[in-house]
């Protein structure tokens, strides 16, 4: 093992940011906090990006590991114990100096501190807490901090970090418990879910005692409330609230064309999805495994007296991330797990990270065509459909069709399977129905609903409002008229048009010599890898 013990600060920074780069969550959002006299920093609810690196990803936070030494040997990780990579460890002081100096120059929005496991989980968590403590109290930093809760660390240390951090995250690492056992032999599900549940109930307690403190509820929470779905919170969970049935019903919307066909009955589809219980039991088991006995994480917050309660406890909420394409799991499993995390753990975000075989480990898939970026993209799109659009995982995928269509975005794909619900009349349809139209997003749906109060809308207006007409035209009418006289609006026709839009895909078709006519939606539910 190479130790870079006497490395310069720049060498350390290179090593420890290089080691942190695979972590995807770089958002600085979720809490809005004004500046404070004599302190440096504030935060903005929407988050602020500060640069974009050569891979096009945003740089918002100083994303570093405290150390890349690690006693664990997770197969997918560049920093695993058996790897021969240069190792380095920061001091708390170095991290604080870098954060402050970068922040003053407006390079960054705050600190993202993760770490390899040095000596033990508790020792690592102590170092993280020490750093955060110094940054907040000695350096008087008032900006954004995101830190990891190390699985297996004691609850006192997790709580301590939560009083300093804005957002915390515990990584799921892999979507299935099985995958985790195989690829991260030193970790188990319970170790990951315990701090997650602790943070969730701590946040709820803090909200009740101190108010939101500039934080906000997750998009999933707001969407569920708008649609009148039940949403558990940390407190009622702890009191042993009855198990949510959301997932059972989610597993059923299954049949792609089965569901309701009442005119304008889109909501029907989203809520009353039927109740066949035996479909996809095995897959749903994965999401069901996310349950912890109600005794876990019940201690509540114990350190009120020792902290400045001005910021609240983890006011920007918690997130997690999963590696995609390492363990052979289907998109349906992944989305079900995400949905369960949103429902039961009140997460702000689930991030998906396309697997990159950094270790060339023989037991992991070799990805000749690069990381599964397109699949990752589809998962993010579907994740937005869950959080903002009120879709359920079971509507988008089913055990018989477990993966997303790489050629069409999940919303178009869904709409094509539900042609009986379209076209939708722009001037009368309700907000949630508009949201389900391909090409109409959260912003444009909101603008439509507001604008039509003062007058009838037409296609030229929609374009100005940010509706993507080239997708939406097949699914909408304005004042009873379609935009063009389509001879025959059926699935095949629209699919050809929608797929034809993307040049890259067209090229792909030419290469693989697939003719358009052969294209049937149901044939190419292939895996993105």
């Amino acid at each position: 093992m190479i130790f870079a013990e006497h490395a310069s600060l720049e060498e350390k920074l290179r090593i420890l940011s290089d080691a942190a780069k695979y972590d995807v969550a770089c958002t600085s959002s979720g809490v809005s906090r004004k500046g404070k006299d004599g302190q440096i920093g504030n935060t903005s609810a929407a988050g602020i990006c500060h640069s974009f690196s050569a891979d096009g990803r945003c740089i918002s936070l100083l994303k570093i590991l405290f150390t890349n030494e690690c006693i664990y040997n997770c197969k997918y990780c560049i920093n695993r114990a058996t790897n021969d990579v240069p190792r380095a460890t920061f001091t708390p002081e170095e991290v604080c100096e870098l954060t402050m100096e970068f922040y003053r120059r407006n390079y960054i929005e705050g600190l993202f501190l993760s770490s390899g496991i040095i000596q033990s989980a508790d020792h690592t968590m102590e170092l993280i807490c020490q750093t955060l403590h110094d940054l907040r109290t000695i350096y008087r930093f008032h900006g954004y901090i995101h830190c990891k809760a190390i699985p297996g660390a004691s609850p006192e240390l997790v709580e301590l970090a939560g009083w300093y951090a804005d957002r915390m995250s515990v990584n799921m690492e892999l979507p299935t418990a099985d995958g985790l056992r195989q690829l991260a032999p030193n970790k188990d599900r319970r170790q990951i879910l315990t701090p997650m549940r602790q943070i969730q109930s701590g946040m709820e307690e803090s909200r009740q005692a101190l108010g939101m403190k500039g934080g906000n509820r997750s998009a999933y929470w707001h969407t569920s409330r708008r649609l009148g779905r039940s949403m558990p919170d940390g407190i009622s969970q702890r009191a042993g609230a009855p198990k949510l049935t959301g997932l059972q019903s989610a597993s059923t919307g299954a049949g792609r064309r089965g569901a309701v066909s009442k005119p304008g009955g889109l909501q029907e589809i989203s809520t009353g999805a039927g109740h066949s219980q035996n479909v996809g039991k095995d897959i749903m088991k994965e999401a069901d495994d996310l349950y912890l006995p109600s005794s876990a994480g019940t201690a509540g917050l114990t350190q009120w007296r020792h902290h400045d309660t001005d910021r609240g406890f983890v006011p920007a909420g918690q997130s997690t991330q999963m590696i995609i394409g390492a363990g052979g799991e289907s998109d349906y499993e992944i989305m079900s797990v995400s949905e369960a995390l949103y429902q039961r753990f009140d997460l702000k975000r689930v991030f998906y990270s396309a697997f990159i075989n950094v270790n060339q480990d023989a037991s992991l898939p070799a990805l000749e065509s690069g990381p599964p970026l397109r699949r990752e993209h589809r998962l993010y799109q579907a994740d937005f459909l869950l959080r903002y659009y009120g879709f359920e995982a079971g509507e988008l995928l089913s055990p018989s069709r477990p993966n997303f269509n790489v050629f069409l975005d999940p919303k178009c794909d869904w709409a094509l399977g539900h042609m009986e619900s379209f076209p939708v009349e722009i001037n009368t349809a309700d907000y949630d129905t508009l949201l389900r139209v391909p090409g109409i997003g959260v912003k444009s749906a909101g603008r439509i609903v507001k604008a039509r109060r003062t007058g009838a809308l037409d296609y030229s207006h929609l374009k100005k409002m940010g509706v993507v007409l080239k997708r939406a035209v097949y699914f909408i009418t304005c004042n009873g008229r379609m935009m063009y006289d389509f001879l025959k609006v059926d699935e095949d026709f629209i699919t050809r048009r929608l797929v034809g839009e993307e040049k890259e895909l067209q090229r792909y078709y030419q290469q693989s010599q697939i003719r358009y006519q052969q294209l049937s939606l149901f044939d190419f539910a292939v895996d993105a890898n």
Partner: protein
Amino acid sequence: MKEMRIYRCDDTPESIFTAVYDAGKSAYGHDHIRLEVNMPEAEQNYTLFSEYVDVMPDADKMTKVLRTVRRQISQQAYEYIMVAAGSRQPDKADVIYHFIVYGFALGSKVTEALHIPCVQRMFEIYRKARNEAHYFLEFIRFEEISWQDHPVLYAVIEPENEVIDMVADHFTDRLNPEWFIVYDKSHAKAAFHNPGRRWYLRKLEPEECRALDELEHSGGQEYADLWKAFFDSIAIQERENAGLQRTNLPLHYRKHMTEFH
């Protein structure tokens, strides 16, 4: 056919809102009134069969217009027209005028009535200007220089629209204990901030601009180098995507950014 009447004003808020006031008071008929701003972007075409009126700026008239907009339309509408007045769009005065006319008819709903062409255009101008201002909150880079023996944070920007207010407000809250200067090179203005106080704006003389120009890159390089090192190592090679990087961070913003030097 009734002749068009065209009010010509200068590119200052005072002149634009005076034109709005005069045009409104004239009761000539909104369909036959157009407002034109003298600015380099605008084509100066005289139209036949039109009557031209040159506007004499009047601060009282501006105050009256703005007060009425806030009272009778909404705070949101006020923000729209102020941002539009500071933008670089050649049709801004005309859009502001017709937007206000609709605003008096529709009240606060006018900002949502996106099916009306001038409201649409107003929304576009507003969004464009705000987006640019937001870009500068993201991409502005300070360096620590020595200014009258103080360590001062110094940044240069070259925005198209007037963004310095929003930028200076943002950093006054954020960098409350610091001295800082934001120099807007394209409008020859600078915002100055002293610790714990509010910031103030100064119009700059050409020689002051030259002095400020020389300050760029005069600060220490230590943290700039560390930042560049971080910027390089945080990118994932397997995912390299220059196109996406350019979409998210357009080239013309990179001119004064530390990591692209």
